[in-house]
């Protein structure tokens, strides 16, 4: 037996469990769901092949009674808008994490204790966090509106109001995320910046802002980029747990995301083919972000 074919057998033995799982839980399901997206199937009657009808219904436009062009599934576009709206939390939360990392990287009393406190929300079981915030955000008896009333502001109904429900969820995800993984990554990034750069800049008379602008921010670009890409990929898929626990996607669908729509179509209404088609659209969106990352992520310029 040659060395390479013997190595092939050894590798096969090491890889067998992993490849079996990879086939059973990734490759075959991806292909199956791709195929499923061309069918109509409610899990009770036999699946029916309908070609690209799921996709045309999802993405297509029809003329309504007045002859105007309207989306054939307006809900999809609304939920996509909701998903993008909730992703506003990403830049907000990232700036917060960076500011916090900058603060905790300075000489602060009990820095380790503070870091622990800020990290706790991201350690909690999300479902429990959302239930807690549903109570805090209660329009009539919630703590938040009570505290706002103390300073003379009449708080909105938050989760019960179509206009305020999305900002409320952004608020919760900021609270839960600001001191978590991203802050720790920023802190690690800050600690990797050589001290003598700041010393040289101080000697040259550069103030705090100029040091941040010309040393800290450029040298943190890889961290920022990594965090941003991961958050955007997660953001397209997210929103289910928050909406499930706090709003059930309401009021009037204003907190339903693409992820929640897939859940409803697949596991509440048993439109398996249609749900598979939406999940593939989601896949393509994530793929797009990843390809952009590959194309431009290589150029992590430090100026």
């Amino acid at each position: 037996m040659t060395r390479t074919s013997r190595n092939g057998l050894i590798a096969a033995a090491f890889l067998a469990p992993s490849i079996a799982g990879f086939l059973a839980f990734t490759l075959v399901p991806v292909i199956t769901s791709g195929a499923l997206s061309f069918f109509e199937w409610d899990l009770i009657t036999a699946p029916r092949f309908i070609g690209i009808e799921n996709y045309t219904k999802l993405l297509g436009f029809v003329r309504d009674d007045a002859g105007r062009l309207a989306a054939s599934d307006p809900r999809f576009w609304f939920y996509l808008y909701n998903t993008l709206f909730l992703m506003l939390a990403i830049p907000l939360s990232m700036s917060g994490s960076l500011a916090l990392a900058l603060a905790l990287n300075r000489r602060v009393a009990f820095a380790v204790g503070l870091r622990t406190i800020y990290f706790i929300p991201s350690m909690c079981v999300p479902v429990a966090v959302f239930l807690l915030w549903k109570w805090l955000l209660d329009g009539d008896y919630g703590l938040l509106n009570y505290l706002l009333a103390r300073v003379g502001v009449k708080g909105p109904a938050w989760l019960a109001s179509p206009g305020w429900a999305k900002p409320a969820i952004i608020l919760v995800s900021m609270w839960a995320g600001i001191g978590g993984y991203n802050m720790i990554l920023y802190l690690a990034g800050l600690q990797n910046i050589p001290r003598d750069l700041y010393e040289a800049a101080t000697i040259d008379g550069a103030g705090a802002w100029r040091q941040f602008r010309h040393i800290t921010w450029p040298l943190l670009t890889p961290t920022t980029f990594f965090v941003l890409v991961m958050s955007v990929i997660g953001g397209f898929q997210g929103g289910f747990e928050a909406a499930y626990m706090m709003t059930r996607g309401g009021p009037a669908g204003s907190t339903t995301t693409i992820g929640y729509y897939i859940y409803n179509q697949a596991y509440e209404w048993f439109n398996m083919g249609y749900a598979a088609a939406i999940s593939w659209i989601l896949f393509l969106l994530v793929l797009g972000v990843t390809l952009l990352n590959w194309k431009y992520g290589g150029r992590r310029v430090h100026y």
Partner: protein
Amino acid sequence: MTPSATSVAAVAARPSGLARSVALHALVYAGAATMLLPFIWMVSTSLKASGSVFDVPPKWIPNPVAWGNYRETLESLPFGWMFVNTVIVSGCITLGQLLTSSLAGYAFARVDFRGRDRLFLAYLATMMVPGAVTMIPVFITVRMLDLVDTYWALILPGVFTAYGTFMMRQFFMAIPRELEEAAFIDGSGHFGVYRRIVLPLSKPALATLGTFTFMGAWRDFMWPLLVTNSETMQTLAVGLASFQGMYYTAWPLLMAGSVLVMAPLVGVFLFNQRFFIESIKLEGIKG
């Protein structure tokens, strides 16, 4: 952590140095209070009698203290079972991931076989697939095989991970090969090297992957929600959601349930926070 002596001296030399430091502390501590306040409110609510929970102005210290809320919560749902289920499911997923990813990672890092790099790229590519895509066919399969409400359904799909394989491979690549050569000369095979040399040297990586896998599995919600029906098979996260369905606005009970669900993971974190934070740094630098 500490700024260099010169920059501290430079800040302190300016007249505004002290004022700045006070402002920084005020901001950072106010932020920390904002982080903690919701938890304090949660515990406070969980100990209030149902009659006093809607009092205006709200009271921070419940009077009388309604310890009975916790008893009622524990009696209305089998939280003990759910805790055991969560431990079993998270534990098995963690052990399974450590085993499959370290084996596969070893093959990718140390065995020279044809098509290795292409296969590894294929592994990496699967990380881009959203969970929602694969979940639908796997859910249908679980239903068809009548595996709803079994540990199989809760555990098996979580055991395989391209991410873990990637992480293990990266770590193994950094281990010097000299250590293994002596073992090969002594007649040891690849499996012996994997078990007696590579694994013992990889404890930090295994601990990191294990921690994140365990936490991820403990926090997971949608999959356990889909594949469990009976209360005695549910995990804590799913149990809390059903609990909410039972007591729609009975906030003292709901908050008691939240405390029970949050406490174990937060407790573990508080005892090991340095390890957690170092692990994240390890993860992020590699990513």
